[in-house]
């Protein structure tokens, strides 16, 4: 009897904590999004979806931009991470853990500080641009900060390790005898890669996409620090609605829409690829 109760007693505190500070707030936010009002006069339920329709029509372009940036930065992460993960998994030999460790070094610097450091690197008269301008290689008014390129660069940089790890883990698990078998059956190196290695490593890529696309789409720090007025993402809008306009109902509606869009996205994605792979890979 006691044995049967044990798991429930063990999971109770964590479950309660997550219920009170994770599940309940999201329900509160949903209820907030169906209200009208302001901080001074208080808020009242209207049970209208008008915050949602208004939010989508006003900020639809910002939603689209966030998803677009998310796609661009995620694609950049895959393109940059895959070859490196491949080399570390198959060719690095005894230095595997050293190289992995080097890949994870950014995690030892505070996220915000890393982003601010990019501002240093890309500053108009900073180390890179300043030097090139001094050598007369760039026009004096050339700038990177405040452009889409700078924002994508920051987003890619900040979330790249989340892509390297799952791809590396997937490649690492591949049985080397399969590669030998492919060679024995006269597959060229390219064919071996395309028909054996790539398909077997795809679950890692899928997991990497979940782990990068979601935080990238919801990010507002990179757009704020590195971008300009033309790079406002939905995260920035939500932040401003909460803190500058104090329009809590609208902000809640936008935040809930973002979560809904990402959830539906993940769900379809997981269905398309088989839920098990994505959940398993994400659970690691």
């Amino acid at each position, binding site marked *: 009897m006691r044995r049967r109760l044990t798991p429930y007693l063990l999971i109770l505190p964590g479950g309660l904590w997550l219920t009170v500070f994770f599940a309940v707030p999201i329900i509160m936010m949903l209820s*907030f999004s169906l209200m009208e009002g302001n901080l001074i006069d208080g808020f009242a339920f209207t049970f209208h979806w008008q915050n949602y329709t208004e939010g989508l029509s006003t900020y639809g372009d910002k939603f689209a931009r966030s998803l677009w940036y998310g796609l661009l930065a995620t694609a950049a992460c895959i393109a940059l991470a895959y070859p490196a993960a*491949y080399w570390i998994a198959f060719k690095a030999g005894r230095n595997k853990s050293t190289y992995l460790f080097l890949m994870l*070094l950014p995690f030892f610097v505070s996220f915000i500080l890393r982003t601010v450091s990019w501002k240093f690197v890309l500053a108009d008269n900073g180390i890179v641009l300043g030097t090139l301008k001094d050598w007369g290689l760039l026009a004096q008014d050339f700038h990177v900060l405040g452009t889409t390129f700078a924002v994508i660069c920051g987003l890619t940089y900040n979330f790249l390790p989340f892509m390297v790890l799952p791809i590396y883990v997937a490649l690492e698990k591949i049985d080397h005898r399969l590669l030998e078998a492919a060679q024995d059956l006269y597959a060229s190196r390219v064919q071996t890669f395309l028909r054996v290695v790539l398909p077997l490593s795809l679950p890692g890529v899928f997991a990497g996409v979940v782990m990068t696309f979601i935080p990238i789409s919801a990010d507002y720090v990179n757009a704020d620090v590195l971008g300009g007025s033309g790079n406002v993402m939905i995260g920035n809008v939500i932040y401003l609605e909460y803190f500058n306009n104090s329009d809590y109902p609208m*902000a809640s509606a936008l935040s809930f829409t973002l979560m809904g869009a990402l959830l539906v996205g993940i769900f379809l994605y997981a269905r398309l690829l088989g839920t098990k792979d994505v959940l398993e890979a994400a659970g690691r």
Partner: protein
Amino acid sequence: MRLLKGRFLHLYTLVLVGWLILPITVMIAFGFNDTTSKQNFVWEGFTVKWYAQLFDKEDLTQALVNSLLIALLSTVITTVIGTMAGLALGRFRFKGQGVSNLVLFAAISTPELVMGSSLLAMFVQFNTPRGFVTILLAHVMFSIAFVAVTVRARVVGLDPSLEEAAADLGASGWTTFRLVTLPMIMPGVMAGAMLAFALSVDDFVITNFTSGSTVTFPLWVWSSTRTGTPPQVNVMGTLIFAVGVLVALYNLVAARRRRTT
């Protein structure tokens, strides 16, 4: 051709590592910059004076103390709660396990912006004053899932017959846990604790939404971007980086030693 390909990818990996550590190098270097202006990104000469004047900016020091204190408290609470949950999920089969796993997955994959803004929505509706305590509550909330998953992975790989053997020899449930189970899952618990600490010290978004007027180190850095980030921030970042790397290296070496003996 084959050699070339291997070489090329090796070179590529090195370039990528270079790109990853470029901003870190810049951060460390500008902690030694003898800057005279508020904007610290033009090199003006080498100095170590910022290391001597590390705690001159009182509000920045306070922010760092807040960050470390919250991280410490959050780590202690999270490690206990998260380890319990990890044990339950890795060791037992019970009703509601699937739901629990799904909640953990949701807690790991929900964007921080949504977590932070929903917490703010709740605190506003309940008129909860935001500050040190709300930050702590939020940090424990988002760390639990990571610790639970880390511990669960360790528990799943354990041999249950060892615990049964302890029970056969007359050990009570608590004694078995203390003398058999806990030592075996300790590496997982420690890894989870370190992860919780790192997540808490580094967290910006959720803290930003739940902080009220309390300032943590990341929030201070964020607000300084408008006026100019002082070199002390670089020095603190450098020291946090150094401590983190040393702890990680120590763990790597310790793990290697365990394997060879």
